[in-house]
């Protein structure tokens, strides 16, 4: 079975690109491919001008996995400081923790934090070295709506500063916040464009209907 088949997409600098698709559609595989953890059987992956995997480019990428991958026996600050040290960005530690609003919990051991706080700490680890490209694999899964709004505020702050964000999601209201979207199902890229583009393409008013209509196409 192929996790991805014939996917070809381009992401523009400074935009928030959403990968929208149901669970198991290949979003995570695509993101792992972008960081060079999976090699495509055919074709190539170019990130920030270099073919992946490329160590220099990895230093300019921030990657946040689906589950908050943190050292649960370390404090928030120790975690962020570790990932900062790996990318040579120790001076940004306080700022990164501040962005995700965990300054008052910086000394808390991760295992004592709530799921939402862990997710925020994980984001801080991904953005501490001020990456030009941020890859976020379902960053808002399992966090409450209020925090989700906050996350999107962080994302917009980052893109305003020139960063590009690729975010995967299976939640429609989140997808609507992206500049452009790629609809993925069963490893195929079904449609691509802004929310308006997709709605127009499908001839419907709601993104959800557009998604259902477009994904009922030939790939199904």
């Amino acid at each position, binding site marked *: 079975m192929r996790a991805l088949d014939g996917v070809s997409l381009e992401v523009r600098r400074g935009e928030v690109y959403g990968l929208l698709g149901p669970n198991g559609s290949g979003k995570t595989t695509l993101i792992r491919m972008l960081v060079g*953890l999976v090699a495509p059987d055919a074709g190539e992956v170019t990130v920030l001008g270099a073919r992946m995997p490329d160590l220099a480019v990895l230093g300019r990428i921030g990657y946040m996995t689906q589950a908050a991958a943190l*050292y649960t026996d370390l404090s928030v600050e120790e975690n962020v400081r570790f990932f900062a040290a790996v990318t040579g960005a120790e001076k940004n530690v306080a700022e990164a923790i501040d962005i995700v609003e965990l300054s008052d919990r910086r000394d808390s051991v991760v295992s004592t934090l709530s799921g939402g706080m862990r997710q925020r700490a994980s984001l801080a680890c991904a953005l501490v070295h001020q990456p030009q490209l941020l890859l976020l694999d379902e960053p808002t899964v399992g966090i409450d709506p209020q925090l989700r709004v906050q996350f999107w505020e962080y994302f917009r702050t980052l893109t305003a500063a020139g960063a590009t964000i690729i975010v995967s999601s299976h939640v429609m209201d989140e997808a609507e916040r992206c500049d452009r979207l790629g609809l993925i199902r069963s490893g195929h890229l079904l449609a691509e464009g802004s929310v308006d583009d997709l709605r127009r393409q499908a001839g419907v008013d709601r993104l959800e209907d557009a998604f259902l209509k477009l994904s009922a196409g030939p790939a199904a």
Partner: protein
Amino acid sequence: MNGRRVLAITRRLLQQFRRDRRTLALLFVAPLVILALLGYLLRGGGSSPAVGVVNEDSGPVGGAVATQLLKSSKVSASQMDRPTADDGLRAGTLAGYVLFPADFSLRARQGVIAPEIHLEGTQPGPAAAVVGAVTGALQGALASSGTRVAPKVFYLHGGPNLDSLDYLGAALIGLIVFFLVFIVTSVSFLRERTQGTLERLMATPLRRGEIVIGYMLGFGLVALVQSVLVLLFTLYVLHIHNQGGVGLIFVLVALLAVGAVNLGIFLSVFARTEFQAVQFIPLVIAPQVLLSGIFFPVTSEPVPLQYLSNVLPLTYAVYGLREVMLKGSDLSTTALQVDLLVGLAFAALVIALAAATLRRRVA
């Protein structure tokens, strides 16, 4: 107490075992393998200790006892002259030799049976076998009672003051450090895999060599502190016999610890859960405990097992530690040089293996 609820738990456990065939296989197969190994080790017709017989007796009694001794099944005795026997003892090819001095017959007639027994002295098992065989041969050759048997025992290394702890302690220092460091590293590195942080590290500019060396330094540091503690305790609290340089012992133990760290990283690839990592104990540790010469000298094992023993890293650490602590060897000793080189080679091999498991692009 509700039987249905109790059975629900039991059934769930059995279902989980069905999914984890490896644990099940280990549970059933490992004890048989370990017992079979032990059985073969102890009853597999292992080579009996090599013993030299030197007969300088001017009378007939020495020759009679020597004949008995050559027939003994406890030791494999062969006749030789004294310089050859001394060489054999020093080279470790002989566990000991029996010398019947020129006045052996003369004194036997006076009622005192006084052979000399020269022992290599660093291995308790063969030493006991030699003394036992000599006693047996004396009884076989001299049926008459009323004589006093007074063998004079000489030790090349160690001496009569060495007890089991002295023999085992030297080797156990290596085993303890190897075992604990291996378990801690493999579980800790496995956690890095299961909690997703390794994936995250792979998406940073970290090179795999940097990860391996970082781990090696971190765990190595803890392992070194552990080694120092173990050494201080064995030397100054247990007063285990040591004739060699403490620095050399430390180098041997440190090499072993570095090897164990990297073996742990390498083998953690083959485990999905911490539970499975613990299963490496019977697979990796148990055979080494039996076959590395800690309890049973490698030279007394059945020959096929000796080949196996000779590829186990712990074997060389055990040799090396005994070489230093019981024989007082230093770096000019060839045997110790070999042990150190093998330790280095093992460490280098597992470092390479550990680094190889951290290849990027592995799904």
